[in-house]
């Protein structure tokens, strides 16, 4: 197991370095001098400019700048936003909100996907199955911002079940509407994977063995079938974590949830390059970490995976 963990972490290093370098190189390509931008219309004193450039290592070659940036990340310093706030402070304020939203959304996604996917698989080709397939196709095709606006209009404005925006009050109970939108936008892919996976599992030898031992259906389905059908669904939500992050950005923007995604959205509206990059980097780091954790969980769940070179 230790060898497996080490191997996974070693594989992660080039991905982490490469993706941060790629984003950093994109900003470096940005035209214009950021120091001059700080002064607006005024012509700054050259000595002050030189001092500031030295402070931010802008007089160094590109790769040295990247090295300083990386050093900062490893020391836990994610940089500063355009307006001079520390990204760490912003993260400390916004990350818990996004975390709550993501946990609720993933919960809703999994509950819907597992229940509907399993029932569809057990009633393959019946009315319920076909209806759910059509509905899931529509949810796959609905872009998340359209879904969010529709939910906001019908569920909040027309029927008044929820508040249309979240704002400063953002505890678990205030996040239901954005979490439902985000969860439902993700559920369709998982549900279809679950359906296919359960159909495949139902044809396996061990399921026939379980039935022939005389086990009742209510024990075979949850214990023997569901557990073995879950792996593709979990893999998919780990590799699709990027979709969740983009979805969170859009839902937070529409429902005014003060999370990481909303901060990124506000930065794009104001064209604040450095802030955008800091937060995209945060997202990439999150993505890489989540995939590491899921990989390690697999190694724990399924011994076959550990030994594959």
């Amino acid at each position, binding site marked *: 197991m230790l060898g497996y963990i080490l191997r996974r972490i070693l594989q992660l290093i*080039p*991905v*982490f370095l*490469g*993706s941060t370098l*790629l*984003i950093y190189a*994109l*900003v470096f*390509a*940005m*035209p214009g001098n950021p120091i001059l931008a700080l002064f607006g219309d005024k012509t700054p004193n050259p000595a002050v400019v030189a001092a500031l450039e030295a402070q931010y290592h802008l007089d160094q070659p590109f790769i040295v700048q990247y090295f300083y940036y990386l050093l900062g990340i490893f020391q836990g310093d994610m940089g500063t936003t355009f307006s001079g706030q520390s990204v760490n402070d912003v993260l400390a304020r916004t990350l818990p909100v996004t975390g709550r939203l993501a946990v609720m959304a993933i919960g809703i996604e999994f509950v819907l996907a597992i229940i509907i996917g399993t029932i569809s698989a057990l009633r*393959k*080709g019946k009315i319920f199955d076909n209806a759910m397939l059509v509905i899931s*196709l*529509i949810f*796959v*095709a*609905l*872009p*998340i*911002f*359209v879904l969010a*606006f*529709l939910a*906001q*209009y019908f569920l909040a*404005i027309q029927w008044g079940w929820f508040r249309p925006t979240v704002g400063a009050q953002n505890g678990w109970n205030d996040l239901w509407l954005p979490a439902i939108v985000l969860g439902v936008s993700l559920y369709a892919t998982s549900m279809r994977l679950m359906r*296919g996976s359960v*159909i495949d599992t139902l044809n396996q030898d061990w399921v026939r063995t379980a039935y022939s031992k005389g086990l009742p259906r209510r024990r075979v389905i949850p214990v023997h079938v569901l557990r073995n059908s879950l792996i593709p669904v979990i893999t998919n939500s780990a*590799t699709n974590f*990027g*979709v969740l*992050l*983009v979805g969170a*950005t*859009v839902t937070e*923007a*529409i429902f005014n949830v003060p999370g990481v995604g909303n901060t*990124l*959205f506000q930065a*794009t*509206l104001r*064209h604040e*390059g450095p802030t*955008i*990059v800091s937060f*995209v980097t945060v*997202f*990439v780091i999150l*993505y*890489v970490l989540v*995939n590491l954790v899921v990989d390690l969980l697999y190694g724990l769940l399924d011994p076959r995976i550990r030994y594959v070179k």
Partner: protein
Amino acid sequence: MSSNTELPTHYVAPVKDAAVTVDAVKVDEKPASLWGDAWRDLRKRPLFWLSCAIVFVILLMALFPTLFTQVPPNNNCMLSNSNAGPAPGHPLGFTFQGCDIWSRIVWGTRTSVSVGVLATLIGSVIGLVMGALAGFYGGWLDSVLSRIGDIFFAIPYILAAVVVMSVFSNYRNVFTLALAIGGFAWASTARVVRAEILRVRQADFVMASQALGLSRFRTLLNHVIPNAIAPLLVVSTLALAAAIVAEATLAFLGVGLGSDVMSWGADISNAQQSLRTAPMALIWPSIALTVTVLAFILLGELIRDALDPRARARR
């Protein structure tokens, strides 16, 4: 050999009684092929023809918008028509700025389709080249190309496109937008292509073409890639739908094409301001976007189903 021991006798069926009769041999029939089977399956599905029809109308709208509307999308917008309902000649009513909604939807098709097609083309070509080289040659080349793919896979491509479009904010046009989307969305295509090439590489005809003296690269180009193209077609159709969504999402996030270009995403985003009073200005372009995406997803999934005998068994 003694003659008193009886030889074991076997029953031998008389030849005439056991003659196998073959009903008929159709010599002229074409041999079954992957594409032939898929086409025979697709032809029978009404959903396939429905999505083909929608795609055809969308392409027609993108190429010849004047066939569908005579109203220019941006000029003669009258503020006196702001958020007004349907009127003669304006079947879907007006936006907040008093522009004709139907005309804006028709003209917005071109943006969605051109960005979608270009981005998919870019993504598919990069994905095909990276996946084919990695899968066919293997070894260190595979390791290097697959790690590069992992790096691009780790950056959600809409977020990468946000960074690219805000960096190149002075050069926003269809090409940069397509490059921003396609240049970061190819990693999953490359994975699919690589897996398929790995499978095809084992086939006997690959060994035969090598034995006949064809170079490695010629074998890859003439024999391996044409036999591995089916999954690429499926992935590309689905990627086209994803690219159209990406374009609309970027327009919604404010980093799409400029405000002078018609885009469903930008129109949906603008209509948000008057969502309470005039929801239809938001709902109509949303329907256009969703129907377009749905048509491409349906087409991709039906082709995937038709090409995969296992999926046919699941129905």
